[in-house]
């Protein structure tokens, strides 16, 4: 057995991956079901090894604004929370998007609305991919479906965020956060040096040398003409991300009569439902969006002609299903199946839902 194969929770994997990626600072505030992220970081004491800062802020609002400040100085900074805490961060996320700064935000979703439950949910889909905060911005959204992806998406999230200078989110849920699986952690890499930051992130506020004008980090632009130019720049960037960074995977989709569409933990449960369905002769397939924004609309549209129906399976009352419908433009029947408020469907329930929603006599 390789030393690098570990058994750990998804939350713990995020913390270890952050230290190994060379993250400069984590700012957070505890909330179930993601508290192990900060607990693991505190236990690892990376300030003794890589020099990474780990700080429990006085609130979620403070934490996201610390991220804003850290990102403005060119540092790799992150925060994490769960649904109610993520709501509190929305103003800060909009500001960071408006100021064109990179950072990583982790949401380990729980049942809402309000304080809700601490059990798994995917009801923050709308909040994440349709805005959340105010203004015309988009959030690169990665949906991990395994503990391994919790670890891997830390690097992916930061890489994309720095490439496009816009915030990225890992949108997980209580299942992926709390379950333990095998994981291979990435190798250690060094935090960026002062020189590397100045060279690779020339926009960062690191003190003004002679011979260039001040770097200004702000989302405020009172001149609407200039603010429209800013917005057009953001939109051009978002189109580029849609073209280049859309990610998804399929399972037994080739000959499927009915296509399940699910992300994160729901996709794992759907995979079993596909196996159960196939065992009794029902040709099911699965498409799992890995990026929720950008959404794999084209890939989904590509299945519209070949399948008899699509079922969007989500731990919510029907959110991603709207994007599936937009993708297929009425060419195929699209239905939704979900459980709410922290309840989780079983593979059997999903299989039954396929039969009921498409009136199959099996």
């Amino acid at each position, binding site marked *: *057995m390789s030393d690098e*194969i570990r*058994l750990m929770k998804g939350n713990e994997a995020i913390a270890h991956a952050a230290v190994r990626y060379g993250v400069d600072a984590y700012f957070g505030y505890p909330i*179930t*079901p993601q508290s192990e992220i900060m607990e693991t970081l505190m236990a690892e004491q990376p300030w003794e090894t890589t020099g990474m800062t780990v700080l429990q802020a006085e609130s979620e609002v403070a934490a996201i604004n610390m991220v804003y400040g850290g990102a403005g100085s060119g540092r790799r900074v992150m925060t994490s929370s769960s649904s109610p805490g993520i709501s509190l961060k929305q103003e800060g996320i909009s500001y960071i998007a408006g100021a064109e700064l990179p950072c990583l935000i982790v949401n380990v979703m729980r049942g809402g609305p309000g304080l809700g439950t*601490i*059990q798994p949910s995917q009801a923050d889909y709308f909040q994440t991919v349709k805005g959340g905060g105010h203004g015309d911005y988009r959030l690169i959204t990665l949906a991990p479906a395994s503990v391994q992806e919790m670890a891997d998406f830390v690097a992916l999230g930061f890489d994309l965020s720095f490439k496009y200078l816009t915030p990225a989110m890992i949108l997980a849920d*209580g*299942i992926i956060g*709390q*379950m*333990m*699986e*095998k994981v291979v952690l990435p190798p250690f890499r060094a935090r960026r040096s002062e020189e590397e930051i100045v060279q690779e992130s020339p926009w960062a506020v690191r003190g003004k040398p002679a011979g260039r004008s001040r770097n200004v980090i702000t989302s405020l632009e009172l001149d609407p003409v200039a603010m429209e130019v800013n917005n057009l720049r953001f939109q051009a960037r978002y189109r580029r991300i849609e073209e280049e960074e859309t990610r998804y995977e399929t399972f037994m989709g080739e000959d499927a009569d009915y296509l399940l569409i699910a992300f994160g*933990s729901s996709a*794992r*449960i*759907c*995979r*079993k*439902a596909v*196996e159960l369905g196939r065992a009794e002769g029902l040709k099911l397939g699965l498409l799992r969006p890995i990026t929720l924004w950008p959404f794999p609309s084209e890939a989904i549209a590509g299945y519209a002609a070949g399948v008899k129906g699509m079922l969007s399976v989500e731990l919510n009352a029907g959110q991603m299903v709207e994007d599936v419908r937009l993708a297929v433009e009425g060419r195929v029947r699209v239905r939704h199946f979900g459980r709410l408020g922290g309840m*989780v*469907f*079983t*593979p*059997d*329930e999903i299989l039954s839902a396929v039969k009921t929603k498409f009136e199959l006599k099996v």
Partner: protein
Amino acid sequence: MTHELIIAGFGGQGVLSMGKILAYSGLTEGKEVSWMPSYGPEQRGGTANVTVILSDDSISSPILNTYDIAIILNQPSMDKFRPRIKPGGILLYDGYGIRNLSPRPDVRCFRIDAMDAAAEMQNDKVFNMLILGGLLRVSPIVKLENVLLGLKKSLPERHHKLLPMNEAAIRRGMEIVREVV
């Protein structure tokens, strides 16, 4: 080969840590493993359960509706999970916690009086290790030597002095489990 287990009882009985030791043992044997707790506001006295899957192939759903093996440590868990054991599966329960055991002829049923045995060993805390021993006897899904390795991995080093006592409890559990016909 895939083994799908549910371990269910009261919080404080060591349900989650028993599942963790099984998961570590599977890891030691190079298997794919998943450990999914019913996390919640539940503490000592509340209900707690964990789904553990050990497999030679990659694991799809960490959430299941039916199980190959159910390890049941209190009556509410018996009522909830007994109907969800696959035909041909295994039910292992602690004699102390269960009052009503309605029969399921399609399932092999084993009783272990681990609460009593823990009292005899004058150590409540080895309760879950007695159960684990019982499981290894009736269904050796992982090798004892790997369980001992798994135990070592899942226990913080400061508790390693407790390893011999845990091993003794596992071996005692293997002795006292018996089939209910």
